[in-house]
């Protein structure tokens, strides 16, 4: 199916997310859509798949203008979207998920649906168990299920939003093969990403968005030079290559020390952890989703007590003391979901500083506002001391969260510190974290983005299937080797060498 948009405009308040966009996507091809955060990619995809409605302009499927009132309309017209985290029902089995609210008349019976599913899975090369519950599957497997569901429900156009975030390299390869197959069968695939390599590998055409507009107007055929695409995406400054500064070796005392830790969390069973995390280092945790990084971070933050063994912070045994004690010992935890468990949306920055005051019966508002003003200046946060945190943008929220780290902190645990941020914001955040590292903090972060890990870590720890590898100095690691390791290739050898 051939789809096009004409003069499509969508505003959110004063922000024009899509500004008179005109572009078309031919059938039987894979189309890359590139752009930095906030460029308007997601808005365009949501418009195409009916999640939101345009203010102006129109959407045309096979030369027929369409009004999409919801994702159901879009799917009925043949457009299906796979969200970053698949919009499925975790408590259901694969088959139930397929049958749930399927268009009438598509599956005559459970058995028919199962046959169709298995047939399609064979064709696309996806292994699938129709009776498995989705919450037992990995993100990658759920994505496969979602793709098959949309195809079986009649999708002629498949939109994938950052599909390779959080899936294994092997799954990514399988996904690409399947997408090529889908395109070869005459369907249209829209592949939204900010990873140039993937787009270069997979796509027939590329559309670059910047500030809500297509630059230059219209689609480009692939391949294109990488530097050119970077300039299109970010402007001139965007092309600057990442900087890596090797650190002088320091013999610092460990901030954390794990002794003979055994810990169980859900299906994961971490055994015999013996690690020292020195001050003045940035340590990246690489691994597939649910390989143990989360458990390790929670263990180091004191949110999870080990079944056996000891956790020491600055030489003090804090085993089982609880998150509050860890925090008092200088451990700061920055969750990925800022508004969910990072900060309190309805309170202002000044309120947050007031919360950090540790003594006195009454709140010292003047001091809190002073600190907030200081932080706003230091961290270039676009806010006033009394603006509710919820009304700040993601980048400003993340900066505020960093600003709230007390100067006494000696260990920072950051979960996906730049999640959802554009490149400029991400760089600003990292320069702050690096400054902290230079002040003698130990910073441990996890990220699904291997580039980020390669770019900012001093040492990398690979987690694979609940096993925690030894720290590898960044200088000894290449991107391809890291990708292999998180997929398990050579992981055993690595652990054995460390022994």
């Amino acid at each position, binding site marked *: 199916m051939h789809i096009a948009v004409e003069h499509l405009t969508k505003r959110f308040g004063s922000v024009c997310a899509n500004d008179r966009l005109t572009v078309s996507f031919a059938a039987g091809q894979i189309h890359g859509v590139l752009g930095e955060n906030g460029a308007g990619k997601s808005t365009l995809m949501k418009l195409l798949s009916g999640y939101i409605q345009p203010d102006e302009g129109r959407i045309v499927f096979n030369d027929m203008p369409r009004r999409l009132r919801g994702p159901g309309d879009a799917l009925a017209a043949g457009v299906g979207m796979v969200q970053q985290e698949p919009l499925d029902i975790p408590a259901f089995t694969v088959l139930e998920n397929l049958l749930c609210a399927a268009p009438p008349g598509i599956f005559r019976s459970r058995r028919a649906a199962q046959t169709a599913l298995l047939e399609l899975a064979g064709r696309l090369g996806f292994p699938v168990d129709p009776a498995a519950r989705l919450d037992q599957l990995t993100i990658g497997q759920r994505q496969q299920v979602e793709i098959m569901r949309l195809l079986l429900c009649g999708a002629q156009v498949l939109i994938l939003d950052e599909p390779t975030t959080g899936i294994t390299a092997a799954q990514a390869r399988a996904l690409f093969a399947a997408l090529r197959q889908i395109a070869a069968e005459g369907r249209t695939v829209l592949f939204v990403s900010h990873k140039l390599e993937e787009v270069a590998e997979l796509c027939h055409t590329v559309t670059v968005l910047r500030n809500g507009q297509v630059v230059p107007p219209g689609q480009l055929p692939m391949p294109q030079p990488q530097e050119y695409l970077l300039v299109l995406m970010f402007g001139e400054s965007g092309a600057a290559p990442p900087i890596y500064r090797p650190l002088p070796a320091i013999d610092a005392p460990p901030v954390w020390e794990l002794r003979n830790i055994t810990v169980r969390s859900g299906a994961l069973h971490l055994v015999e952890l013996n690690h020292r995390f020195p001050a003045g280092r940035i340590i990246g945790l690489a691994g597939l989703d649910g390989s143990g990084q989360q458990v390790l971070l929670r263990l180091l933050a004191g949110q999870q007590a080990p079944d056996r063994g000891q956790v020491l912070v600055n030489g003090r045994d804090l085993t089982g003391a609880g998150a509050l004690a860890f925090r008092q010992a200088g451990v700061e935890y920055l969750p990925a979901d800022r508004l969910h468990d*990072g900060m309190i949306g309805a309170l202002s920055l000044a309120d947050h500083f007031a*919360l950090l005051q540790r003594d006195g019966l009454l709140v010292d508002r003047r001091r809190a506002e002073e600190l907030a003003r200081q932080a706003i200046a230091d961290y270039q946060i676009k806010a006033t001391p009394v603006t509710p945190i919820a009304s700040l943008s993601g980048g400003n929220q993340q900066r505020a969260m960093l600003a709230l780290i007390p100067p006494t902190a000696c260990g920072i645990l950051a979960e996906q510190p730049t999640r959802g941020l554009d490149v400029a914001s991400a760089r600003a955040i990292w320069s702050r974290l690096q400054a902290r590292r230079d002040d003698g903090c130990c910073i441990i972060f996890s990220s699904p983005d291997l580039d980020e890990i390669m770019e900012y870590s001093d040492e990398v720890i690979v987690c694979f299937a609940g096993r925690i590898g030894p720290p590898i100095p960044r200088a000894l690691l290449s991107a391809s080797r890291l990708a292999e390791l998180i997929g398990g290739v050579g992981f055993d050898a690595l652990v054995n060498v460390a022994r």
Partner: protein
Amino acid sequence: MRTDRLKLVASLTRPVLALVAAFALTTLALLSTGVSPLEAYRLVLFGAFSTPVRLSDMIMLAAPLLLCAVGLSITFAGGLYNLGVEGQMIAGAIAAMVPLRLWPDWPPLLLWLLSGLSGATGGVVWALLIGALRQYANVSEIFAGLGMNFLASGLALYMVLGPWRRQTSASLSGTDLLPRDLWLPTIDRLRLAPAAPLIALLALAVVWWALTKTRWGLEVRAVGLNPAAAGRLGVAAARRMAETLAACGALAGIAGMLQVVAVHHALIPNISSGIGLLGLLVALLARADPRWLLPIAVAFASFTVGSIQLPLTLGIDSAIAGVLQGALVLFALVARARVR
């Protein structure tokens, strides 16, 4: 610009509309009985102010009501629906009886103090049990609270019919009356014990101050808005939640003690008299803003007292006061819906 003006208009018209809607519903109900709604409203709205006796009855109802509502505004700030407030009041009343029955000969002042302390402790214990069920056993505070309410009323019933029963019969009218000199002193022949409203007003002032000015209050609000984030910022979230429950339990327990020493002068099975649930309505309507608690508690107490005259004068049921109270809160909730 336009939306600003819209919001201003909305902020003014919505409460009025809510009020109109609540009265419309109540009027419909009144019309169905065939009596004059105006006459009924005159009694319900102003009946409590018609004689000194009724006024004093209203104040004696408003005092425990305000105490409960003040306590609940703390738990609301902490993000908890403390439906267990009835049980906490009952537990407080039972606990308050203990010193009074053990040492009836001690000086009254000392006994009242002891009784208040004991009542507050009873309420706290009952509230903390809810906290424990929520914290450790993952039972929502709503159902834990309901369960504890049932348990408390069972306990009160047991005390009245069992160990503390009257000499001659096990009567639901309660235990034997306390000795006269243990009744909280009243003004002349009115049933008004000035200590009760004073305690309630003191509680209101202290809680208002604690919630808005102290670090504890800020932490409680932070926990109420987002416990996970507050915990990350170093607030002992579980502890603060338990503290809000305990604070509410203490105030409800004192309300229960007042019911014993100032109102019923005995333990009766239904010592809480639905005041706790009414307090929930007051707190919901005040939207946990302590400044509104006093006027609303007084208004609700006077509806209840005024409505007693309905069966007497108009031959209709007094439950219409409850209908009016409920409808006011219901439509006030709608009036708060965001302008989208």
